C-alpha cells in the first residue's frame, strides 16, 4: 500500500483526539504478551467470524455444547441479564434470508424484513431448538408480530414484554422495574430454576464487562480498516448473539489485545471511512460491496451493533439494586429510533460520532418499512447537512436479489468522499495554513446525484466546501 503523506498530516489532529479520549479502553499490552497475542487473535477472529457469519449453525453448535436452555430474543433490546441470571443463554433473532412462503398469511408485504423473516423462520421450524422466545414490544409491527406469533408458532413458550417509552420519568422507571420482575418470574418458570440476587448481580456484571469489551473492540478496530474490514467487523460483533457471553467476552478481549500489537493502518488506508446508521447493515453482500468500493466502517450507530453496548451504567446508579441498574442504563440510552426522546438527539449523536471516529461520511442503511427509522431520517439529515457531513441514503432489505443499484450508489459515494479528500489535501498543501481555526462552511455546491432509487428526493449526496473535521 502506498503511503500517503498528506493523509498522515491530515490525520494528526485526529490522532490527538484519539489520545485525549476519555473512554476506558485499555490499550496497553505488555511486550511479553505480544508474542502470544497475534496467533491468539487470529484464532479468535476465525472462531468469532465463523459464528457471526453462520448463525443457524452456530446456534446448533451452542445447543450441542451446553446443558443450559436457550432463550430466543427478538430485536431490539432484550433483558439479557435476566435471562442469563435465570441460567439460560440469550440467542439473538435478527431475521434471515428466507424466501417468504408462510409469513404472508399473517402480514402484508409492507412489513419490515427482520420481522417478516423471523415470522417465516418461526413457522418453518427454524427456532425449534429454542426453549422460549422473548418478544419485547417497541413498535407497532412488534405488537402485531407478538400477537400473530401466538398462533403461528404455538409450540415454543412465548414471553412478551413491553418496555416503557417514558423511560426517564419516575413513572416509567417504576413500571420497568415491575415489568422486569414479572419477566424474571416467567423466565424462572421456563428455566425451571430460580434466580438469586447474587446470580442476577453477577449476570449484570458480566454484561457490563462484555459491553465494555465490545466498546473497546470497536474503538480499536477503527484503526485497522484493513485487518478488520466491514464484513469481518460485523461478524465479530454479531457472534455475541450466539454464544455464552462469558466466552464471547474473553475471546473478544484476546482478539482486541492482538490487534493492539499490530501497526495501525488508518493513516495508510487509501479508502474512505464511514459511519453506518440504521437497524442493521446486512446482507453480507452489502458489506462486501462496501469493501470493494473502498469503504471501511469507522463506527456504527446500528441497532444490531453499537446501540446494544455503547451505553454503560451511569456512575450514579452504581450502588443501586440490579433491577434499578438495568432501569437506569435503559434510561441512559439515547439516539435510537425505537426509544422515545422528547428532544431527539439522533442528529447530535451522529455528528459527534463522525467527529470522534474521524469518519468522512454517513451511510444510512434504511431498513425498508421501518417506520421509526423513517421518521428519524429527515431530522438527522438536516442536522448532518448543517454540519457539512456527506450522507448516502440506501434502502435495504435482508433478502435482496439484486444489489446492483446499491453498488452504483456506494461507488458514487466512495468517489465523492475521495474527491473531497483530494480537495482537502490540495488546500492543505497551498500556503499559508490558517492557525487552528476552522474555516466557515462555504455556500457549497450541492450536487444531486441521480439514483436508480424509486425515491430520488430521498437520496442526497451533498458536496460542500468545508473545513477540516475537528
Amino acid at each position, binding site marked *: 500500500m502506498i503511503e500517503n503523506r498528506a493523509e498522515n498530516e491530515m490525520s494528526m489532529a485526529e490522532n490527538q483526539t484519539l489520545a485525549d479520549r476519555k473512554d476506558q479502553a485499555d490499550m496497553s499490552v505488555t511486550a511479553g504478551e505480544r508474542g502470544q497475542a497475534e496467533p491468539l487473535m487470529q484464532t479468535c477472529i476465525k472462531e468469532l467470524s465463523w459464528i457471526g457469519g453462520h448463525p443457524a449453525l452456530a446456534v446448533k453448535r451452542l445447543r450441542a455444547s451446553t446443558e443450559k436452555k436457550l432463550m430466543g430474543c427478538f430485536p431490539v433490546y432484550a433483558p439479557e441479564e435476566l435471562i442469563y441470571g435465570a441460567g439460560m443463554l440469550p440467542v439473538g433473532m435478527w431475521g434471515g434470508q428466507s424466501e417468504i412462503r408462510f409469513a404472508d398469511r399473517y402480514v402484508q408485504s*409492507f412489513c419490515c424484513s427482520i420481522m417478516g423473516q423471523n415470522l417465516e423462520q418461526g413457522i418453518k421450524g427454524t427456532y425449534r431448538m429454542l426453549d422460549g422466545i422473548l418478544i419485547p414490544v417497541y413498535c407497532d409491527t412488534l405488537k402485531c408480530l407478538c400477537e400473530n406469533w401466538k398462533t403461528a408458532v404455538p409450540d415454543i413458550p412465548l414471553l412478551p414484554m413491553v418496555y416503557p*417509552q417514558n423511560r426517564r420519568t419516575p413513572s416509567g422507571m417504576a413500571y420497568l422495574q415491575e415489568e422486569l420482575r414479572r419477566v424474571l418470574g416467567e423466565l424462572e418458570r421456563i428455566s425451571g430454576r430460580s434466580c438469586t440476587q447474587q446470580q442476577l448481580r453477577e449476570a449484570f456484571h458480566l454484561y457490563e464487562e462484555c459491553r465494555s469489551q465490545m466498546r473497546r473492540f470497536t474503538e480499536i478496530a477503527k484503526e485497522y480498516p484493513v485487518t478488520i474490514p466491514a464484513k469481518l467487523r460485523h461478524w465479530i460483533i454479531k457472534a455475541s448473539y450466539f454464544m455464552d457471553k462469558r466466552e464471547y467476552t474473553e475471546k473478544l478481549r484476546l482478539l482486541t489485545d492482538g490487534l493492539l500489537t499490530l501497526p495501525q493502518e488508518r493513516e495508510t488506508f487509501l479508502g474512505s471511512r464511514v459511519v453506518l446508521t440504521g437497524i442493521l447493515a446486512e446482507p453480507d453482500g452489502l458489506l462486501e460491496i462496501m469493501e470493494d468500493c473502498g469503504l471501511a466502517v469507522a463506527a456504527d450507530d446500528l441497532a444490531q451493533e453499537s446501540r446494544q453496548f455503547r451505553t454503560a451504567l451511569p456512575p450514579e446508579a452504581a450502588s443501586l439494586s440490579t433491577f434499578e441498574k438495568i432501569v437506569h442504563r435503559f434510561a441512559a440510552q439515547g439516539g435510537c429510533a425505537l426509544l422515545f426522546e422528547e428532544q*431527539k438527539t439522533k442528529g447530535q449523536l451522529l455528528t459527534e460520532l463522525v467527529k470522534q471516529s474521524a469518519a468522512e461520511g454517513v451511510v444510512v442503511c434504511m431498513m425498508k418499512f421501518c417506520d*421509526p427509522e423513517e421518521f428519524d431520517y429527515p431530522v438527522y439529515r438536516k442536522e448532518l447537512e448543517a454540519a457539512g457531513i456527506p450522507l448516502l441514503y440506501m434502502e435495504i432489505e435482508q433478502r435482496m436479489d439484486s444489489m446492483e443499484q446499491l453498488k452504483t450508489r456506494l461507488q458514487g459515494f466512495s468517489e465523492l468522499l475521495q474527491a473531497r479528500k483530494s480537495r482537502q489535501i490540495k488546500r492543505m498543501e497551498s500556503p499559508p495554513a490558517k492557525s487552528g481555526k476552522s474555516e466557515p462552511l462555504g455556500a457549497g455546491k450541492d450536487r444531486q446525484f441521480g439514483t436508480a432509487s424509486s425515491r430520488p428526493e430521498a437520496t442526497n449526496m451533498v458536496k460542500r466546501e468545508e473545513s477540516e473535521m475537528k
Partner: protein
Amino acid sequence: MTEIQRQNQTPAQLQTQVQTQKQTQTQSPDQPQISVPAQAQTQTHSKTQTKSRQTSKQMLAEMMAGHYQEARDAKERGEPVAWSTSIAPQELLETLDIKTVYPENHAAAIGARKESQRFIDQAEGMGYSLDLCSYARVNLGYKELLCSESENIPLPDFIFCTSNICNTVLKWYENLAKDLHIPMITFDTPFNHTYEVPEHGVRYIKSQFQEAIPRLEEITGRRFDYDRLKEVMKQSNETARMWKDAALTARTKPSPLSGFDLFNYMAAILAFRGKKEGYRLFQLWKEELDQKAAAGLGPWKDQTEERFRILWDGIACWPYLSPTYKALKNSGINMVTSTYPDSWTILYESGDLDGMARAYSSNYVNRNLDYSVDNLVKLIEEFSLDGIVFHSNRSCKLMDFRQYEVQRRVEERTGISTVIFDGDQTDPRAFSTAQYETRIQALLEMMEAKKRRQMG
C-alpha cells in the same frame, strides 16, 4: 399574502375568505355528508336559525367550525394551544381550559377535501418516506405550508401525545416537538398482550397523569382544580355514553344510521367529549335516529332498502368517501358499525384515576388478538351483521398486521362473509376504485348466496 399573514388573519377576514370557497355544506341527499369544519358561512347562517330547528348535522358543522376558530383566537391572544392525539386524556386539558386541536381530525378533513396530496408532497420532499402514516405526512407537510382549504390550525405551544392508538404518534410528535422546540407531554400506554390491562400498566398510566399535571400548570400558568377535574370526568363519561347510545341505534333493522355518518360525528367525539355541547350534539343525533327508527325508516333519504349490514374495519378512505360509500349503498349495503364507537366509549367512575388510566389503555388497537376477535364477534351478534369490510390501510400497520388472522378467526367462529381491500386513509395514490368495487361485488355475492341458503 404570505403564509404568516394568512395565519394571522382576524376571524372576520378568515370568514370572508372561507365564504368564497367552492364547496358548500349542503350536499345532495345521496352523497355522504362530508364533515368539512371550515364552513363559516354555516356559522353565519345558523345564527338566524332557532336551536329547535337545527339538525344535529348543522350543529356538528357549527361546533367544529367554532372549535377551530377558538383555537385560532386563543393563539392570537397568546394563550397556549395544544395538539393532541385522538384518544387522549382530554380531561386534563379541559380542566385547565386549554384550547386543543387534533391533527388527525385536521388531516381527515384535508383528505376529505381532496387536498392531501399537496401536503404529502411537501413532507416527502423533506425526506419523509411514503411508507409512513399519511396523517403524519399530511400534518408534517401542513406544518410547513400552514394553509389549507379546509381549516387552518394554529401551530401548537405544546404536544399532548398518547400512544394507545399507535407508537407511530410517538415518532410523529417527537419530530414536531423537536422542530418547534416545544414541550411534549407523553402518555405511554403499554400494549396489552394480555387479555386485560395489567395492574402495573394501570399504575404506570395513572402516574403519568399525575406527572403531567404540574407540567400543564407550568405551561399555562393556571392552577389545576381537582374539583373541576371531577366535573369534567363526569361530563366526559356522560358524553361518551350518549355517543355510544347514538351509535347503538344502528342495531335496529333497518338501521336509521348510515354508518358513514359515524365517520363525520367522530370529529366531535374527539373535540367535545369533555364538554356539555358534545353531550347535547349526540343527544340530538340520537333523538333524530330514534325518530327515524320509530317510523321504520332506513339509513338513506331516498329509502333505498337496507339489504345487508356490514362492519367497516379501519379508518375511512377520506379522499374517496363518495365512491366507497356509493359502491355499498348501490347494493343496499349499510355500514352499521365499526370499531370506532367503542374507541371513544371511555368509561370510568368520576374521580377514579385508576379507572381512567385503565380506560385509556383499553381501546381496540391496544388490545391483544383474542380480545379483538371477541370484540368483533360481539359486534357481529349485536348488530346482526352480514359481512365485514376490512380496510387494509397502507398507513396503519398496527391495524393491518393483525387483519389476516382476525379475518380467519372471525370467519371460523361466525361464518360471516368478509373481504379485504387495499386503501389509505389520506394518501390518494393508494386506492383503486376498481379493486374496491370488485371486492364489494364479491362480498355482495357471498352475502346473497348465504341468504339464499338460509332461506332455501
